[in-house]
């Protein structure tokens, strides 16, 4: 049976088959999502395409073309028909960037960081404080904001703060790194866990003595960067109107806009991660992970390299944090709980520690599972609950099913199951890390 499948796969992955299959799936997926914007299976079919594009043996130029077609044309258009998809992809991008950053710290340098989400919070709160009315509310009691408060900065400052968020998060990474340099393994994990909690509790309590974070209520509204000017939007709007069936609103354009922003950030993140990995710095990180003593004996400056890993990892989260704050127009300490750190860790472990394509896949899979598959399952169950259907044989009426059994509440259970199952059966992840094969002169002999 196994050989049958591997033979089948080999056949499907040679000659013209890959292009046929990929294009076929792309077209089928596009049409079915277009027809049934709410169908989960249609969306999953479409989401298989990027995987195929990545794994199939296709000419590089064709790959890039299909990828661009999917990303630049198909997804935004379909996204305007069902705005939820852009939200899903936005979240996938956010978590993929977080997973890529955490992957540098844990996967490459081997430093177990359980408080990673703190850096995300640093980025988010950076823009939240300066991009909202919070600066003029510093001396007022949370929740009792005077009516005439002004935004402190113009929304255009968002772009500057995108970079500031990256820098501040990197700085926070170094601050965390300094005291934990001598720690390894479990000790390091505990300290980083504490650090994550400290940042969250700071966000929760810095509404006194001056109201910096607005405490548990969070900060809102946070400004969004302005949309591109009308002379660019107008032609796109008239082009899209017949395709999506209505005149796209500004809200929908904002979704597309953030979708592209998130894509740009994730592209940069991927570029930075791959290039760092395949350089002197990346090799030093891996060496530290493999054997710290041997690494320092080989002349690797441990302090500098560990701090660099913390800073680089944190900077990804910082950038995405700024973007997240602008997208949601709201941040609160809730978002940056310990469980969120574990969630990102789950994505990294599911995809494969140290594997860049792996962690992106891991992040996408967990996001789809959490906000799509479980949600859909919940909807289905609640429909059953409202119907008069009965499970045959055991004679159990669906409407007697307890509300506690709502799959949407199982997020944490899913994290747990993924961690346990992966550690036992596939500790190196679904797409394990591979070392780059070099073309060596001596190998050609």
């Amino acid at each position, binding site marked *: 049976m196994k050989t049958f499948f591997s033979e089948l796969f080999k056949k499907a992955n040679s000659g013209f088959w890959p292009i046929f299959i990929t294009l076929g799936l792309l077209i089928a997926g596009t049409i079915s999502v277009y027809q049934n914007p709410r169908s989960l299976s249609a969306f999953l079919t479409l989401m298989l395409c990027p995987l195929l594009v990545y794994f199939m043996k296709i000419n590089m130029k064709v790959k890039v073309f299909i990828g661009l077609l999917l990303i630049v044309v198909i997804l935004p258009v379909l996204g305007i028909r069902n705005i939820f998809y852009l939200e899903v992809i936005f979240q996938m991008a956010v978590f993929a960037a977080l997973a890529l950053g955490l992957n540098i710290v844990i996967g490459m340098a081997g430093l177990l960081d359980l408080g990673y989400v703190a850096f995300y919070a640093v980025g988010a709160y950076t823009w939240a404080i300066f991009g909202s009315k919070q600066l003029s509310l510093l001396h007022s009691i949370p929740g009792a904001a005077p009516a005439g408060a002004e935004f402190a900065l113009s929304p255009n400052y968002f772009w500057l703060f995108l970079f500031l968020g990256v820098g501040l998060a990197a700085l926070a990474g170094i601050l965390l790194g300094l005291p934990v340099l001598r720690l390894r393994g479990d000790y390091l994990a505990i300290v980083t866990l504490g650090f994550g909690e400290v940042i969250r509790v700071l966000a929760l309590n810095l509404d006194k003595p001056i109201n910096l974070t607005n405490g548990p209520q969070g900060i809102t509204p946070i400004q969004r960067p302005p949309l591109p000017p009308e002379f660019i939007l107008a032609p796109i709007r008239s082009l899209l109107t017949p395709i999506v069936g209505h005149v796209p609103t500004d809200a929908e354009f904002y979704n597309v806009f953030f979708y592209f922003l998130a894509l740009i950030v994730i592209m940069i993140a991927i570029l930075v991660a791959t290039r*760092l990995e395949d*350089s002197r710095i990346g090799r030093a990180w891996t*060496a530290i992970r493999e054997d710290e003593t*041997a690494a320092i*004996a*080989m*002349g690797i*400056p441990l302090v500098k390299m560990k701090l660099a890993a913390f800073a680089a990892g944190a900077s990804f989260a910082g950038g995405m944090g700024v973007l997240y704050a602008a997208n949601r127009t709201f941040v609160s300490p809730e978002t940056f709980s310990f469980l969120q750190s574990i969630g990102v860790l789950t994505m990294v472990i599911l995809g494969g520690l140290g594997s860049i394509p792996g962690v992106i896949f891991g992040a996408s899979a967990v996001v789809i599972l959490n906000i799509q598959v479980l949600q859909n399952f919940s909807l289905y169950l609640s429909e059953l609950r409202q119907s008069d259907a009965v499970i045959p044989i055991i004679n159990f009426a669906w409407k007697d099913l307890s509300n506690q059994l709502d799959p949407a509440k199982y997020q944490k259970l899913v994290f747990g199951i993924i961690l346990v199952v992966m550690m036992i059966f596939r500790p190196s992840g679904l797409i394990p890390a591979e070392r780059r094969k*070099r073309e060596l*002169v001596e190998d050609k002999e």
Partner: protein
Amino acid sequence: MSLLQTTNVVKRFGGLVAVNKMTFSVDEGHIVSIIGPNGAGKTTFFNSLTGIYRPEEGEIMFKDHSLIGLRPDQVSARGISRTFQNIRLFGSMSVIENILVGMHIRLKQNALDALFRSKKFHAEEKEAEQKASDLMEYVGLKNVGNELARNLPYGGQRRIEIARALAAKPTLLLLDEPTAGMNPNETEDAIKLFRRIRDEKGITILLIEHDMRVVMGISEHITVMDYGEKIAEGSPQEIRKDQRVIEAYLGREAASSKD
């Protein structure tokens, strides 16, 4: 003149004096051995030289500069490379990457070069790769550059460790029991390799070794340690006849009954 000179180096672990007043020197271009029974403090002495431990007392001079207080990476940058008693390769990195890690201090690229893939970066990486390939061939490894280091047989791993140490372009190479666990043929090859490293590359070698054939075969100078102290030094012929050395190895009674 001596390349490495230690004076009264003391290293204690709590009450235990692991290295006691070691005064010792290595001349440039020599192959020098440290021998001694298990637990004599040889490896601790090595670790004190390379900055992994900081000795409590004494002075270590290398090329007329003190090494005391330097971190291991700084010691490595000064030109001392080492291998380990238990092989310590970066197991899930490829063989060639292991050697490239050894070049870390000799590479000039920074993060920006790596991010923007500057010309300098490409040129340096290519050159480094070439040098690493050459080193692999030098230590007698072929067509294994892309293998994971942990997948190589024992003898091969020992060779990678030496190639990795050579990659840092040392003037002094410290080998900690380099032939431990080798069969006679492999040992023979290893001895030849050490000679070549000294003769062709002009690298001074200091080794800890248990195998007397190796020690007597290639060392120009031998220092014997026991209970953390130097008990004898001299040429292989002198060491062979030294009463204290025979006692240290065989025990006092066995040594006297031999007479």
